């Protein structure tokens, strides 16, 4: 099942990237896809995280919101960079996440890091150490919305795992 997912993804990736559909090239494509499958079987990464296509729709809904957040945060940091008076006030806060699966936690931590002005420094269990550029923007409450959206986008529906 997961092997099939990787097979389809690798084939689609090759098709979209090559643009050559002669028999020789398609033969190379089949060979490289099979090699990829053998390698991922040997690395034992053929599991739920290796082919997370079930939650692809959730991610697609999450990405536009994240893009908007990133743009808003960019503006704040750009102003901080160009202001004549260096008025930053860095802060370290502990953020508790409600995400259960590793995938959701990684999504949340990477979203925090991707947003300029905040970087996830460390993850331990369900607590994250976040370094922020402005004390006022880096309070644990400001991450609640992002946390909830990550849990919705990446956590399995039954809240198992």
């Amino acid at each position: 099942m997961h092997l099939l997912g990787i097979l389809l993804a690798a084939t689609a990736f090759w098709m979209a990237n090559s643009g050559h559909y002669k028999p020789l090239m398609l033969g190379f494509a089949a060979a490289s896809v099979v090699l990829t499958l053998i390698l991922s079987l040997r690395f034992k990464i053929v599991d739920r995280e290796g082919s997370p296509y079930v939650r692809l729709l959730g991610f697609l809904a999450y990405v536009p919101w994240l893009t908007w957040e990133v743009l808003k945060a960019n503006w704040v940091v750009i102003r901080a960079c160009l202001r004549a008076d260096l008025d930053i006030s860095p802060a370290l806060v502990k953020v508790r996440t409600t995400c259960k699966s590793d995938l959701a936690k990684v999504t949340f931590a990477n979203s925090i890091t991707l947003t300029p002005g905040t970087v996830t420094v460390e993850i331990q269990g369900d607590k994250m150490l976040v370094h922020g550029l402005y004390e006022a923007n880096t309070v644990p409450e400001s991450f609640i919305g992002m946390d909830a959206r990550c849990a919705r986008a990446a956590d399995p529906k039954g809240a198992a795992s």
Partner: protein
Amino acid sequence: MPEAASLMPLDWNTIRVALGGALSLLGALLCIVGTIGVLRFPDVYTRLHAASITDTSGAGFVLFGIALMAPDWIVLVKIVCILIFLMLTSATSSHALANAALTAGLQPKIGSMRKGPHEDEASP
């Protein structure tokens, strides 16, 4: 056909090249802003924030501009792939860098930078 092109100077091909060029230029300017931030901010952690401007909006606008100028969909797919991988890996590498700095025992500077001595502003 040429006469149609001269009648409609603002067809999509003209617009997308101009718009793509403008967006790429904006991205390049944002990269410069990020670099200015890296030079001005006091320690590793704050400099990471400035570098993340270059990573996200700088690279994002440049790639979006290039995507608008792409000649065919094969190139477009490649640019979208670059964008996805860049967003995933830049966040991961920023986190790895910050985590390494903390593990090495580097203490971040906390609190307002206004109170401290202003040696950062003194240098040009």
